[in-house]
Each structure stands twice: as C-alpha cells, then as structure tokens.
C-alpha cells in the first residue's frame, strides 16, 4: 500500500511539508556535526560526533524516502537539488559550529525538542511514521545522554567554560523557538490523523524541560520575550550560512545531477 493513500490532496501536501522540515533539520544538523570529524577537542569526540552525524543524516534519508513516495523526487534530488529558499530547516541548525560550547548546547537542546517531536510521531495514524519514530528514538537516546554529559562537564568546568556555555544557551534557546513555529497547515495533520496534536503546541513543554535542565546545571534561562525572532527557516527564510553550506554540499553532485555517483 503506498504511503498516504488514504489522505486528501490537502493532507498529502501537509504531510510532505512536515516530513520535509524534519528531514531538512536532520540533514543540515548532521552536516554541521560532520564538520567536527577530525577537528573535535578530543579524539573520542571525533569518533562520537561522526557517529551522531551519521545518525542524523540517516534519519534525514528515512524522511526523504517517504517524501520520495509522495512526490516522486529521489532522496538525493531532495537533499542536494534544492535552493536555500526551498529548504525548510530551522535557522538554528544552519548556523556555523562556532565553538564547542555552542555545538554541545545546540545539539542537546535540539535533541530535547526532537525528542518531543518524535514522541508525537509515535501516536501517528500512519504506521510507517510510527516505526520510523521508534527507530530514531532508539538512537536519539544516546545523543541525549552524550549531550547531558557534555552540558554538565562544561557548566562545571571552570569560569571560561561556564561563560561560553551560558553565552551559547542565550543564542540557542532563542533559535529553538523556531523548531515549533506554528504553520498554516498544522491543523490538517491533526484532522487527517497523522499527528495527535499540532506540533507548535509542544513549545511550552519544551521550554519547561529545557529550563529544568539549565537550572540543574546552574545556567540562566534567557529572557525570550525580550528578543525578536530571527528569520523563519520553515517558510524558506535563511541566513547566508545555509547558502554556503548547500553550495559546498552539492559541489560534486550538481556537476551532473543525473549521473550515477
């Protein structure tokens, strides 16, 4: 049975959009993770981050494959063949890696948000989506443990580490809001049984979980309302970092998009 066969046209479109934004988040973050490979502060982290990067890119591939069956574009066309204006990832994940504190905090808080998102997928009416979510969550458990360990190490690692970590929290938490940005077609996902609730409604739960983790580590929760939101990646507004990332990522593939590589 092809995926989404019971959906209305509107339902299929919304489903495709939702899969695409999750896939793009995972691909772009996985790409950023992979940039640490060979340059992490410890050899152990070169290995760990390479493994995390492979997981994220594999998750992206799983979502792209579902879209492939909905839209008829191959997963490589989806990953390598779109301009930045068609990318749906949150701008948080496209930002350059900066320092290790930013990397750790971004990944951990993103993983906390992703945990809520994939938990919601477990209650989807679409069996394929449920089984993908189960697989993803098995791997993400280790990412969460890894992130919690590093956040603790850095938050308790002396004045400089602490200053860098707090600075990263201030930057990242704001960007995390974009993950749950309300989207016009969210209600369609609920109506057609693909999700139990609108994803944007996960934001308060995320903020209270993130706040608890920060408090445990003696870190401050930044004043979110005081800061204006940045560009919204969900509707294709991105920073120049994403354009550069896509240019690099597609450098070889785009020389001949129909060739076998």
């Amino acid at each position, binding site marked *: 049975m092809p995926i989404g066969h019971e959906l209305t046209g509107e339902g299929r479109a919304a489903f495709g959009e939702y899969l695409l934004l999750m896939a793009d988040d995972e691909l772009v973050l996985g*790409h950023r993770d*992979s*940039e640490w*490979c*060979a*340059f*992490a*502060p*410890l*050899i*152990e982290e*070169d*290995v760990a981050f*390479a*493994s995390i*990067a*492979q997981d994220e*890119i*594999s998750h*992206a*591939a799983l979502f*792209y494959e579902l879209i492939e069956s909905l839209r008829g574009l191959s*997963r*490589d066309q989806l*990953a*390598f063949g779109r301009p930045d204006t068609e990318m749906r990832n949150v701008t948080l994940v496209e930002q350059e890696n900066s*320092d*290790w504190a930013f990397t750790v905090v971004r990944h951990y808080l993103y993983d906390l948000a992703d945990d809520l998102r994939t938990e919601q997928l477990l209650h989807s009416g679409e069996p394929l989506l449920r089984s993908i979510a189960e697989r993803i969550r098995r791997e993400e458990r280790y990412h969460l443990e890894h992130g919690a*360990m590093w956040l*603790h*190490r*850095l938050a*308790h*690692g*002396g004045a*400089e*580490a602490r200053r*860098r970590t707090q600075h990263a929290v201030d930057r990242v938490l704001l960007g995390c809001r974009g993950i749950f940005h309300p989207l016009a077609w969210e209600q369609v996902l609920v109506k057609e049984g693909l999700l139990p609730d609108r994803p944007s409604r996960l934001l308060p739960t995320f903020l209270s979980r993130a706040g608890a983790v920060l408090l445990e580590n003696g870190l401050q929760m930044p004043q979110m309302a005081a800061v204006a939101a940045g560009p919204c990646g969900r509707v294709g507004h991105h920073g120049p970092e994403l354009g550069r990332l896509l240019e*690099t*990522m597609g*450098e*070889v*593939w785009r*020389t*001949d998009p129909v*060739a*076998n*590589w």
Partner: protein
Amino acid sequence: MSEERLHAFEARIAGGELIEAGDWMPDEYRRQCLRLIVTHANSELMGALPEREWIPRAPGLQRKLSVLSKVQDEIGHAQMIYRVAEDLGRPMGVTRELMLDELIAGKAKFHNVFSYPAPTWADVGVIAWLVDGAALETQGALLKTSYAPYARILRRICAEEAIHLKHGEDIVLTLAAGTRAQRDMLQGALTRWWQPLLHFFGPPDEQSPNSERTFRWRIRLMTNEQLRQAFLRKYVPKVKALGLLIPDPELRQDPATGDWLYGDPDWNEFWRIVKGGGAKTEDRLRLRRMTRDEQSWVREAIAGPTSAA
C-alpha cells in the same frame, strides 16, 4: 645477567612466542616497536584529513554516510593504536598528549602518502581502494608481529580496512562506468596517486633503514619490496581491467618470477617528503595545531577539579 635475559628473550621469539606489554624486553625492541606503532597511529590520524575534506562534498546521501563512516574508523584506529603505544611507551614516559604534541610540532613521522592533496572526488575512491589496499598489505603482514597487543588490534583494524576497500572500489567502479567526465576524473586521480603508491611501501630493501634485528625479532616479517610486489600482483590487473592507464611505460611483469618491474618512481622525491616536505604536510599540521590550540579550553574544563564524569 642482561646478556642472559637477552638470550632468553630471543629464544622466546625464535620459538614463536609473543611478547606482552608487561614482559621483559630489550630497550631496543621497545624503541623499534614504538616507532612502528606511533608512526601507524599518526598515519591513521593524518590519513583521515585528505578524505575528511570530502565529507561535506560527497555526492549523494549514501556516499556522505560511507565517507563519514570511513573517516570515523580511521580516527578510531588512531585512538586504539595510541593506547597500545601508551602502554608500551609508559616506562619511557610516553603519553598520548606527548605523541599528539610531537605530531603537530612536526617532530613525529607519519606516512608519506598523507602529504599529498586530494583535489577531486575520484581521489576519495582511489585513496580508499588503492591506498587502503596498500595499507592492508602492510598491516596484514604485521598480524604475526611478535608484539602481541599490536597484533591483536591489527586484527580488528584489518577487518575494517577490508570494508573501506569495498567502499573505495565501489566509488571507483561507479566512476569507471560513468560519463566521460567521471572517467577522466578517475584517470587523473590514478595518475596522481600511482607514484605515491609505489612510495607507500618504502625505499628498495637495500636503501631501507630497517635493521636485521627488526626481522630477527619478528617486529616486521616482510621487506618493503616483498610488500610492494604483493600489492602490484593484486592490483595491477584490477586497474588494467577497468581500462585505466597506469602512468609507467616501463611497467611489465617478469614472466619467470611474476614480479612487476617498474620504472624509477623518483626516490629523491620520497626522501624529500619523508623529511617533511610534502605539498600538504605543513597545511595539515597547521590545521591540527590551530584546532588543538583553539580547543585547549575544553580540555582544561574537563581536566579541572570541579568536573564530574
């Protein structure tokens, strides 16, 4: 007393026994094993860099994942081998930090082959197929080395290298069966890597600094030329079968011995690189130095008294 110990040690080796980290061994045996093992660890770490440049550019999700996985393996090998070196070098005060410091200061050896640039995607395939193929010959021959802890990790490393070979061969076969531009790119990479591949095994035996003792103590079991010939016998026919041109007009097989006779691969160039003069040696070391300096705060943070694991 020490004469007797040396005789007993050599008798163990001659009897096919293996030496463990805690066993008595002559200082010279320790030094020679350590030199071999540290050079291997450094080479795994530095060897990750040319391919690493292509992780962000790999064409297609599957290629991106497989290059990433390969580079991860190489760095994981370095990690395991440094641990073996640390155990062996402990009586001489050798630590991983010290080995890494010496590497980035340009004072330590790593394989000459990792001093070259990898300018195209085809280089990734040629490196993973042929450079890893060459490494597998060398490492396979070391599986019976007399230093047991090294032999044990080599078994695992060789198993993973065999997977890298498949990954490289798959990239090469895909390009060879591809468009004209893809085939040209592949030929270009082979032409670039052929001489470094001959250099890979080291100078001809008569110029090799390896002492007779290295073989008597079974630290190494095959000479440079034996390894080079094993490689050529396996890979020359495979490369030719792809319709690629090997850039050596003098290359031919001796029908009597089966050995491949090759033109002079410019051993002066080899010695120049060994002494630190490779095209990318300094760039790659500088990159390592820079990232190590930038991240010193992380290592300080986790070493501090308030950190909890």
